[in-house]
């Protein structure tokens, strides 16, 4: 808990109350596969409720496989596929994906949403320290199209790299005007 509190202290954008916004029915609790060695569930013995949650553990080899999300608005954002669901206690081995994963390329991030979504750079300090990882950002967009709040839903393990993505989205991304919307944006920072 100390860790969490410090994380909050170190990063004002990570307001804890923001987390409760996005756990509607069917909303994914986790997007990226937890590390195979992390006994996350076993360690959390005081919370048996966790086991009962329909936590989709999805093997996303190159993050092209997305867990099920009810499509509410804005169709044709992503092609959704049936998730390969594994029980939380199952050994987290790669699960064959129902669709062939497209190779992750260095092509810029594209979407057919109207707006401006420049891809963030890979910061030099992160490359110097060899930081990489996957993170998930929740963005609330105003009717004017600007991000009202940008928070981390899943951390990549480095607060600094999380913040880099959050600040980038908040400062550089803009949507076309429309109704207030919310988006989950996965970021994959990969060194080669």
């Amino acid at each position, binding site marked *: *808990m100390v860790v969490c509190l410090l994380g909050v202290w170190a990063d004002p954008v990570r307001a804890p109350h923001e987390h409760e916004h996005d756990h509607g029915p069917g909303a994914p609790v986790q997007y990226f596969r937890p590390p195979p060695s992390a006994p996350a569930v076993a360690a959390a013995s005081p919370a048996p409720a966790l086991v009962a949650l329909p936590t989709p553990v999805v093997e996303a080899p190159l993050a092209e496989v997305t867990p099920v999300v009810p499509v509410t608005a804005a169709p044709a954002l992503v092609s959704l596929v049936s998730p390969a669901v594994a029980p939380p206690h199952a050994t987290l081995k790669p699960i064959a994906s129902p669709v062939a994963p497209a190779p992750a390329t260095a092509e810029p991030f594209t979407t057919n949403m109207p707006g401006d979504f420049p891809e963030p750079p890979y910061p030099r300090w992160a490359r110097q320290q060899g930081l990489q990882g996957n993170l998930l950002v929740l963005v609330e967009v105003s009717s004017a199209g600007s991000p009202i709040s940008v928070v981390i839903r899943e951390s990549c393990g480095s607060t600094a790299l999380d913040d880099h993505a959050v600040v980038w989205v908040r400062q550089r991304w803009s949507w076309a005007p429309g109704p207030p919307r919310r988006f989950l944006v996965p970021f994959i920072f990969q060194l080669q």
Partner: protein
Amino acid sequence: MSAPRLKRFNPLFILAASALAVCAQEKPVTPEKLKAVVVKGTSIGGEVTAVSPALTLSGKVLADLSQSTLGDVLADIPGVASSYFGPNSGRPIIRGLEGDRLKITQNGTSSLDASSASPDHAVSVDPLTIREVQVLRGPAALLYSSSIMGGVINLLDNRIPVERLPRSATLFGRMGSADGLRALSVLTEGSLGDFAYHLDGFNKTTQDLSTPIGRIADTASDSQGAGFGVSRVGAFGYVGLSYSGLNSTYGVTEPGIEIGLRQRRWDLAGSVNAPTAALKSISYKLGVSDYEHSEFAAGVAGSTFANQGWDGRIDFELTKIGSLEGVVGLQSGRFDFSVVGAEAFLPTTRNANDAVFGSFVQALASASRLRYGFRVESAKVSANAWVHEGLVSNPGSASASFTPASLALAWVKDLSPEWATTLSLTRTERAPNYQELFADGPHVGTDAYEVGDGALGKERGIGIELELAKTRGAVSGSFSIYYNRFSSFIAQQANGQGPDLTLTGGDDHSGLARFDFVAVPADFFGAEAKVNYQLHDNATAKLGLEFFGDFVRASNRDTSEALPRISPGRLGVALHGLASGWSWRLDAAYHLAQNHLATTETPTAGYTMVGASLGHDFKLVGTDARFTLRLTNLFDVEARNASSFIKDTLPLPGRGVEAGLKLNF
């Protein structure tokens, strides 16, 4: 080298999030998931650009090497030795080349200290603030110097942030037994709006060095340094300013002699992204420095060396045209070097250097690429009229001008996804420096009477190198072999004893050996190898076995006599691993004896050094902490460094323990 993979999940967070999920029964709008934004980056050292360094140290690798001098930081790399002038002053030597032949730059501009003039003058850089050490070779090195046979060392710090920096505060304390080290450094960085800032400071003291033959007097030191920088960063690029200072007092083993060093430096740097279609970026840098050091004899300033100057550069990074990428630019620098005091061995000089350079990489068919570069300089050294100890060294002001031109070409062929080979050809020219041209007097640092030659021409050489590297797989490593042939190499040649100037009112220097700067034809050849067998490799447990070695021979081609102070080579083996969160390394290196000697040089015996190190990352009251422990010279071997000027009086440090604790808030 595989980058450490971060843990992607905090179990506590899942727990908290899941608990919240149970409470939050309804939501107005379910967020839509967008396609993943894949941000691909090249690991530091893995870039293939016109300016990519041959070798880069950064992150944990560099942090674990947190040594006291730059020479020691790099000394483990095959091909690199340290000039080792006591525990406080050590400049790297690459492939037998040192001093002005091995340029050390700070963020791309000259460090503007006096370290190239004499081995006892410390490089004015605190190894703790350095984020990245680049060793550049071949065409990329021409960006910084025209003398590139050994390469160029470029040190990067974050004093002028080039991008938004994550908020961080680091406290680093170290203690050592062999040199009585007590060091504390602080560093804080972060961003406020469009501004990024950096602040660092350190205090370090050492006691007289403990060696197997006892404590060596007059080797203690006391240093303080600080730096502050701020820049505005944005989509346009960045522009920033920094100020830094260093004060250091240290002994150089001479009884009663102490050096007091002081440097203050302003830096301006900036970059503009894509100013026109033809350019990827324009970046500019300017460093203005005021450096001086005094050699105190029994507390009284004997002579004072001052270096006041500036160095600026502008780099144009060209937009890729077809398969060609490149950087072209201009560099310009001026400095006044003066020596005041009884032991002056140099006149005051004004030094000017202007350069135009370019470095390119072009992808060819069949998985190969060509790198090439050029650098043309205009160098001028002007010396004031100079009379000292009744000796008229310069009756009137004198000056010498040179136009060195250097070229480098390297052909890189990827033999397979794992193997690559590089063939490099280099032609370098270097203008003689103020010391080689105008020295005439007793030099306390080298304990010699040095005499320069105002009629010296350019130093000239050609070099060829073949490298074979395996970059991936359980077995990785590289092997290279080189031959550097100088038609004119400026060497210090023994020439009897110093003059007796008592008749003209000076001192008697006949007790000092006299060394003249002369141009000789010289050959350098050698080989370097490093092989790592990764026996076991996963995220939590690693085990590897490493073999490394280097060898260099340098001789005067006319006389077949060896050139002085060459570390002949070594063979080493290291076992390293990671287990239960502890990283460790055990290494042993056999350093060859040096029996190929210059006139008046003494032989150096071979020796074996064994060392061990240990590192552990943990949480200390919720703070990221790293503990390091290093054991050096485990068997307390009496060892002499062949490339040190003072090896006969100062052996390498004896058995020692050094412990460090780093806290990241």
